[in-house]
């Protein structure tokens, strides 16, 4: 069964990255507990949303006092990148039954999507089932680590006392390193976004959740207009 061995290979290849996801997951569980979510709720969120960064943003915004709509919009804006990622999967997904398309897009995350493309560039003919195998591994690790984090949090000190509140900032900085495509592509859009955040939050004084969506739109919009010129 070629699809079986592809699932297994995808599962195995993603394991080192899954360690990072587990650390993320434990930390997110702590944050979820701050938002008064229990283990079951945290696990359900992990399985149904399966987009770690957006879950962190949404729960972080809620802990900071934002309303449901504001928090969810900030998280969904962060997930807009998934639109590009699944768009790039069209050749792997077309001509598949509808349930395989739905499974494939739901299991698409930064890690297994990037790994599939990287493995391909090294000359291995991996595709849909490799992506699914990696996604299943990440889903299992994400759901179990976030649930564990939320359950253990009740017997743990306050996250800030552990420095865990900063873990997400550090994680996003590491992710930024991976997202950086070089000065020609990213320097000006990133400067515009960063500058816009500072002005919108400190001068215009709008709610930070909206500031980050607006600032991201300004930077990306500039990149698009520049690219079209």
């Amino acid at each position, binding site marked *: 069964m070629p699809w079986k061995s592809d699932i297994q290979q995808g599962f195995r290849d993603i394991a080192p990255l899954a360690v990072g996801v587990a650390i993320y997951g434990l930390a997110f569980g702590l944050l979820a507990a701050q938002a008064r979510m229990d283990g079951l709720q945290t696990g359900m969120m992990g399985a149904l949303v399966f987009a770690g960064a957006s879950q962190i943003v949404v729960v972080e915004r809620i802990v900071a006092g934002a309303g449901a709509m504001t928090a969810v919009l900030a998280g969904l804006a962060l997930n807009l990148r998934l639109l590009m990622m699944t768009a790039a999967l069209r050749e792997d997904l077309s001509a598949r039954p509808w349930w395989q398309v739905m499974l494939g897009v739901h299991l698409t995350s930064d890690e297994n999507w990037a790994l599939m493309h990287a493995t391909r560039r090294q000359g291995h003919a991996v595709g849909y089932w490799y992506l699914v195998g990696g996604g299943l591994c990440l889903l299992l690790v994400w759901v179990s680590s976030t649930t564990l984090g939320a359950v253990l949090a009740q017997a743990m000190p306050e996250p800030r006392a*552990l420095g865990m509140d900063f873990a997400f900032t*550090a994680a996003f900085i590491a992710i930024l390193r991976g997202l950086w495509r070089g000065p020609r592509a990213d320097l000006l859009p990133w400067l515009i976004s960063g500058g816009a955040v500072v002005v919108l939050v400190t001068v215009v004084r709008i709610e930070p959740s909206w500031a980050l969506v607006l600032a991201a739109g300004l930077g990306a919009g500039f*990149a698009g207009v520049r690219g079209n010129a």
Partner: protein
Amino acid sequence: MPDFGLVLLMLAGGTFAIRLGGYWLGRRLPATGGWAQGLSALPGCLILSLVAVQLLQGGPAEWGAALIAVLIALLTRNLPLTMLAGILAVLALRAVV
């Protein structure tokens, strides 16, 4: 605190719609031009904005720890290591600053 069920429904439904919508769009839209360039620049711009918001809400200890995290990310490109360095740095700096 907002209602958990409402947040979960909106976030899970919205995220799945984005994932499925991307596949739907990918079959229809050109892969070149300004529209595609703007969207491909979006993840970096958004995460940078998020870090900027978080750092604005922090103080000197967070700013110093962020500087250390940037250094470790540049040197190692390793997510867990960058997180560990950031956590240790912020703990040390909060004790001092």
